[in-house]
């Protein structure tokens, strides 16, 4: 579904990504793990067109998306739930979720999708009239994911969804992601929390200093000596 080939990204003289190859197949959950500043966020932002790649192919559903601006990639079905959530703090939870449907032609009729989000995260229903900025970090993360789902993604990209969250909330997110995966949603998950990412995904890539250093089934990587030592402690 999503194919990234030989992706190079530079910020000025600084090369951030080196020939990154990445594939996500329809219905698959793929993890991108690695330490801080390895280039995970940069990879996802490049896929959404927020960073302009220096070289490489970016193909989504057999379409070359290299030249497309962000809003057209969103319309094509690539939806990123960004690091730091970026919810609209002064707006209500409901307005945040509605904003997720912004790019859709049928955005006036998104009530059934709202219900599905509330089913997945009942807490958002309880807080629907509350301002997003007044909620806890975990709730804001749920809101950010819910807002992303309202955009009806074909491929959902999640950037560090568990960052800074309590273990109880992380467990809740894991359950939600499993439900989404079971429903057939394609997910690309970038995580520093390798244990979480490997448990939730089928396949994983290890990104180090802008290079893909290792790739394989998540269950295999979870037993890999190097991965265990470096990322699973």
């Amino acid at each position, binding site marked *: 579904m999503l194919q990234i080939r030989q992706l190079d990204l530079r910020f000025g003289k600084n090369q951030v990504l080196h020939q990154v190859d990445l594939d996500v197949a329809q219905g698959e959950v793929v993890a991108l793990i690695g330490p801080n500043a390895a280039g995970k966020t940069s990879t996802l932002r490049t896929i*959404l067109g*927020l960073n302009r790649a220096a070289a490489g192919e970016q193909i989504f559903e057999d379409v070359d998306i290299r030249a497309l601006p962000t*809003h057209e990639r969103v319309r094509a079905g690539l939806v990123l739930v960004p690091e730091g959530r*970026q919810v*609209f703090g002064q707006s209500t939870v409901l*307005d945040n979720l509605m*904003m997720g449907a*912004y*790019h859709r032609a049928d955005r006036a009729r998104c009530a059934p999708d709202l219900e599905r989000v509330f089913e997945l995260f009942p807490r958002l229903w309880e807080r629907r009239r509350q301002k997003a900025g007044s909620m806890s970090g975990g709730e804001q993360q749920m809101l950010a994911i819910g807002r992303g789902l309202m955009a009806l993604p074909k491929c959902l990209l999640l950037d560090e969804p568990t960052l800074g969250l309590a273990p109880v909330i992380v467990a809740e997110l894991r359950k939600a992601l499993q439900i989404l995966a079971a429903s057939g949603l394609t997910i690309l998950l970038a995580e520093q929390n390798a244990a979480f990412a490997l448990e939730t995904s089928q396949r994983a890539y290890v990104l180090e200093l802008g290079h893909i250093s290792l790739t394989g089934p998540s269950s295999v990587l979870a037993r890999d000596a190097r991965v265990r030592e470096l990322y699973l402690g």
Partner: protein
Amino acid sequence: MSQVIVGQLLNGVIVGTLYGIIALGVTLTFAITGIVNFALGAFMMLGAYGTWYLAAEHGLPYPLAVLVATLGTAVLGLVADRALFRYTRNDLINGLLVSIGLIAVLDNVVLMIFTATPQALDPPLTGSIGFLGVFLPKMKVVVCLLLILTVAGTWLALQRTWMGRAAFSYAQSAEGAKLMGVRTELLQSGVFVYSTALAGLGGGFYASLYSIDPTIGNLYVLKAVEAAILAGIGSIPGALAGGIILGAMESIGALYFPLSFRDAYGLVLLVLILLLRPSGLFAAQR
């Protein structure tokens, strides 16, 4: 004596709505493009000259002249945005420099074409209305009401439409909005141009009330920025209310204190309000 006070107050309110319409442009432009566009005063002056030129020199009916002048100002706003201001997004200093440069250019072009001689329109509407024991020119009352309607319409449109939703979202998290598929560049240009159109409209109305010269906009934009800060940047009803408070304060101040310091009375109020409510009267306090 009380009639004098009421009269001054109402006059201040009317002038205040003119501050308010420009303040609305200031506040929208700042919230969405991240710059303070001081050139909105020059766009107001263009709207005033356009209206005067079309109505007095070419005999167009006044309402049509205002409409055409407003649209013309918006077109110039679009040119300014494409040629200059799109390079100053979220860059306060560069935006300031470019807008001040543009003021110099626009003021002097108008000065060159129409000279510094003040120009005046024949009043499109004569007569006066009695209100609370004072008489106000009909034209002033009509202008005041139309400006209030314009602000209310803008506010409603932003509350009720998806475009407004996108604008509010963008003001809170530019990246969040972009990731939801908002065409941010289009939104920024649209808001910039709409703000120049508001200024042009204000100028068109101004020309029906007062005589005009190429520098009229410069003081008005300062007042508008004052009004927007006083109200709290980003608040739409606040921009109007801020303008009205400022106008009323100046009028009342001018009644009791020397008239020559009229422009200072608003500033005193601004300082007092910011001391008590640092984010402005109508903004959410942090």
